[in-house]
């Protein structure tokens, strides 16, 4: 299946399981949160298998902790590999960040310092994970609220170089680019332009909370107009890349998310018309 055929998707959320199963074909694919299905059985896996019968699915993790100085969690990787075998996903993604160390999970996507040391360390681990899973990883840029004095590279230089060295792909979260660009006052378009075109596998879109002096990536609101505008720019640079909307809190009815996904479809169609 080529990327352009995958199209527009949503996050698979328990609140919508029944409607999704009852009305197939409203979206093109779903993104399932890997850790929610690393369970022995029961309800979550029942719904996962049921909905997978009707839709292509991507697996999206939050606990790989690819940049951590802790050793890779082999038990986690084995569970992920088993889930990959079960779901046969279109791709497997996680975040460019660390989530804790000393065996502790802070359940947050903590930014890395953009240093040569972090680049070497992370690239080596991406290669090890890809080797273990027998497939390429897709890594997402995170929203961040602080930057390190120790950073030697920009975030976009770091991501582009990591993708090159580790031969991994990129999940470009357009909202995260917007949030981090606002917080750290960099040019969001410069970030987009630095992404290697052939490696951008997927877009994320989401809502956020603007505190005035900084924006927090909360996934609990509709997507704001500025992020839609940046998405249109991303589509010009990376045409046909599959898009999905993440909503993790204050979850609205399924129909509302379908309507928001229609906005993404209209913007994409407009970009295609302009280019023609």
């Amino acid at each position: 299946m080529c990327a352009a055929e995958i199209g527009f998707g949503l996050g698979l959320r328990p609140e919508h399981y029944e409607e999704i199963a009852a009305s197939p074909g409203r979206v093109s694919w779903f993104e399932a949160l890997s850790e929610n299905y690393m369970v022995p059985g029961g309800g979550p896996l029942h719904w996962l298998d049921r909905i997978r019968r009707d839709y292509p699915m991507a697996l999206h993790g939050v606990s790989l902790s690819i940049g951590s100085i802790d050793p890779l969690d082999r038990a986690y990787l084995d569970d992920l590999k088993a889930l990959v075998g079960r779901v046969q996903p279109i791709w497997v993604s996680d975040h460019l960040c660390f989530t804790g160390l000393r065996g502790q999970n802070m359940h947050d996507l903590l930014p890395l310092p953009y240093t040569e040391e972090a680049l070497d360390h992370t690239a080596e681990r991406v290669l090890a994970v890809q080797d273990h899973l027998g497939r390429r990883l897709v890594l997402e840029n995170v929203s961040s609220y602080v930057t390190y004095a120790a950073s030697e590279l920009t975030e976009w230089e770091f991501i582009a170089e990591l993708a090159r060295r580790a031969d991994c792909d990129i999940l470009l979260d357009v909202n995260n680019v917007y949030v981090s660009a606002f917080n750290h006052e960099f040019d969001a378009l410069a970030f987009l332009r630095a992404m290697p075109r052939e490696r951008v596998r997927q877009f994320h879109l989401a809502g956020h909370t603007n505190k005035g002096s900084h924006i927090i990536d909360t996934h609990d609101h509709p997507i704001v107009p500025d992020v839609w505008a940046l998405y249109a720019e991303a589509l010009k640079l990376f045409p046909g890349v599959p898009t999905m909307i993440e909503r993790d809190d204050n979850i609205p009815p399924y129909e509302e998310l379908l309507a928001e996904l229609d906005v993404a479809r209209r913007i994409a169609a407009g970009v295609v018309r302009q280019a023609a």
Partner: protein
Amino acid sequence: MSANTGSLGDLQRAFQDYLLASSESFQAAVHDTRKADRITLLDVYRNGYALRLIEALTTDYPGLMAMAGPADFDHMARAYIAAHPSRHPSIRWFGKDVADFLSATPPYSRTPAAAEMARFEWALGEAFDSPAAARGVGDAGLHRPALAPAADA
């Protein structure tokens, strides 16, 4: 080595210790922005850490929350977070030791009904995720029932 020139390991340890409020040294490793000072920005992470875990416990233990009331529940949750840091990839399992914590830790241990409620509520969630759970039962088990406060609690 000071945090702002530290290696990857030093920086990650300082960041995590900051979230756990056991050290403030990470402040020296990050920038202010023109719009916000670094303490405000680091608070997004530090506050987020506790709030996310408290929210997980609130989802798992609505009955316990109703028994204890929001203020005592919050206090209990913060004590549990300090005593039982998460070691699981999924936040779903973070609350698994609440019943044991309550029965072993004063003052909670003086109210055995609290630990009993926690044990019951955890078992409800486990039943839904277990291999033996009924298949195709709708989402009855997903939205954990909001238990009414026990009259005799």
